[in-house]
């Protein structure tokens, strides 16, 4: 179980990170959400994996570690707030800047940009 | 646990399992969206109902009390599943998804997607392409 679990965490991290590296806001937001899943699973597993051990007194013989669960709950809520913010922010950016590129403008030709923008500073 | 209970539960579980499987199989192997739509909305719901019933009886058999609350899940699904199917059908008609050629009354979709009665003659022309 542990091995399968960490592989899942690894794959989620991989997907999340790859999407975070994209150039448009939507995939980045999706990537952040995905990364959030990976993070939550990772943090959750710091209390180790338990089957049939929900930390409700009297409902199991051996309880899972409740602390990481509580931490993950907090992390989920905060993550939700943050994702919500970044979603609306990317809509706002698209509205104000006219592009959904993360830099607010279409990717420029790098070599040109250096000369044009900074040359006469 | 009582043998009687065990048999009932097992049978219910197996039936449920079969229906769930049929639903998903139908989803996977039927040929167009409209026919696929039939399988999961009904078979899966029924299958799930069967499993829920098994679960309820199981709790009664092991704990000694009836957990009617699982029935609520069925109630919920019975209320919602048709809506989902209905609205997905709307989506499919709106998107003019392909249907198998032998479907009868295919042209009805043209009217239906515009929410026109079958008696209507206007409003079809501008977008009269058959799906």
């Amino acid at each position, binding site marked *: 179980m542990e091995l399968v679990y960490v592989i899942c965490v690894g794959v989620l991290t991989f997907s999340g990170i790859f999407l975070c590296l994209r150039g448009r806001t939507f995939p980045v937001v999706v990537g*952040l959400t995905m990364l959030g899943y*990976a993070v939550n699973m990772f943090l959750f597993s710091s209390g180790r994996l338990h089957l049939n051990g929900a930390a409700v007194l009297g409902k199991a013989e051996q309880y899972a570690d409740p602390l990481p669960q509580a931490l993950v709950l907090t*992390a989920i809520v905060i993550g939700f707030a943050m994702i919500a*913010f970044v979603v609306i922010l990317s809509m706002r950016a698209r509205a104000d800047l006219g592009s959904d590129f993360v830099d607010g403008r279409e990717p420029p030709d790098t070599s040109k940009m250096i000369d044009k923008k900074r040359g006469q500073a | 646990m009582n043998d009687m209970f065990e048999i009932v539960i097992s049978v219910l579980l197996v039936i449920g399992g079969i229906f769930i499987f049929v639903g998903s199989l139908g989803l996977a192997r039927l040929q167009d969206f409209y026919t696929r739509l039939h399988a999961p909305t009904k078979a899966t719901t029924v299958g799930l109902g069967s499993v829920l019933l098994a679960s309820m009886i199981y709790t009664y058999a092991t704990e000694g009390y009836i957990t009617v609350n699982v029935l609520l899940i069925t109630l919920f699904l019975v209320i919602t599943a048709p809506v989902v199917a209905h609205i997905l059908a709307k989506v499919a008609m709106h998107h003019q998804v392909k249907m198998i050629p032998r479907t009868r009354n295919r042209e009805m979709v043209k009217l239906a997607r515009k929410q026109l009665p079958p008696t209507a003659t206007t409003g079809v022309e501008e977008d009269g392409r058959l799906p």
Partner: protein
Amino acid sequence: MIEHLPILPIIVPMVGGLFMLLPPFSGVERYNNRRVFAFILAVSQLLIALWMLQTVTQGPAMMYAVGNWQPPFGIILFADPLSAMLVTLNSFLGLGIILYAFAGEDRAGRYFHPLIQFQILGINGAFLTNDLFNLFVFFEVLLIASYSLLIHAGQKQRIESAVHYVILNLIGSSIFLFALGTMYGALGTLNIADMALKISSLNESNRLLAHIGGAMLLVVFGLKSAMLPLQFWLPKTYAAAPAPVAALFAIMTKVGIYCIFRVYTVIYGEQAGELADVIVPYIWPIAIATITVGTIGALSNPSLRGMAGNLVIVSIGTLLLAFALRTPEATAAAFYYLIHSTLATAVLFLVADMIGLQRGKAVDRFVVTRKLRNQVFLGICFFITAMAVAGLPPFSGFLGKLVVLQAAVTNNEKALVYASLLISSLVTIVAFSRAGTTIFMRHSPTKDVSDSPGISRWQFVGTLFLLGAIPMLSLAGASILSLTEQAASQLHNVQNIIEIMGLARGEP
């Protein structure tokens, strides 16, 4: 009330900020109510902070068990001279920028005052908590408040920089959680002092995990403090933010620095056995690279606020350098420098804002344009601030730089510290002289200044309030340095924290 002091810097802005969302204070037309309330809140916070500072410098550090759950189980707030000092600094800065914002920035968009309170709350919380996960929560509070303040009265530039800032910090928060998972997975606790206690007796695997956790935390704190290579967000963000917000942001980077000092002195301190000072070897090159890049940026940036942002990066590099020295003396020096650089850069952002407002479309860019309307006042403010930031006497920057320089002991340390600080100082001087001569001396005579806005009363008050601190920091240098020295020596005395928390219980 005195026993509740450590929680007050969190509760007061929280409750105050929330009250400002309610009918007596909310709504466009009730801005005056909000202002009066915000002012009262800021003053009372400053008084509370000073009271706390006095309490913990005269007596022992204060431990506050939230929910009455004792360490290591509950969340513990810990007010030692370091925390109290930084809370005071934050409250002081908060008061100044609130006054400045009365000039009109607070009416340019919704929720300005509540958000400022929440931002202050988050920063205070980060300074006060002794719990690693709670630190994460306060980080998020201060971050979300900063996101919202950054886009205050939205402008293209703000939105654009906010996208970068928010996304980078979201990734940073994820890394923080990875770090927390790793740390809990290895140590089974969240209390910083408890971690310090447990870290020395780990088995090989857990030691490896604690090492990795520490490295991850460095990324988190580094991103917050804008150390290289995580500094990219800063110049643009600070340049885009509304001026009072940028001024308040000046302390946000210092939260990262504070955490570096706290975490790596307490958890990975001398008592940590093999893990003692495990990240210090990374810090040296990072610090020097940070100073270098900040300096290059300050020299090349074509606007005053962009330059100021890069100077913030330089100050971060300097603080990291002081951290890398790892002696209580160096830590004390760093804290003095931290206070100075926070206030000096904050004022610089305000001054840049006032300058920008009077220069029409040129704003604060280094181009020839109309003359400033309040040339003299702005000139004096700019001059003092520039001298302070560049580290020229007699202002605080000089003293800050001096103490850091003096903290280098070995020849190698001296070579690195002297070279990087002095060269960056020189470049800063050059940059400021170019900026100053362009802004204050070159003007096109054809342009009319009559439509430039004058400096409002509140801008004047807010700026002078913060500016006044700069000479005071050097005049009262002796007492402030003795305070930072006390803060540093208590920080380095890890055993003391463990004892105050009552964690020592016979463990080795």
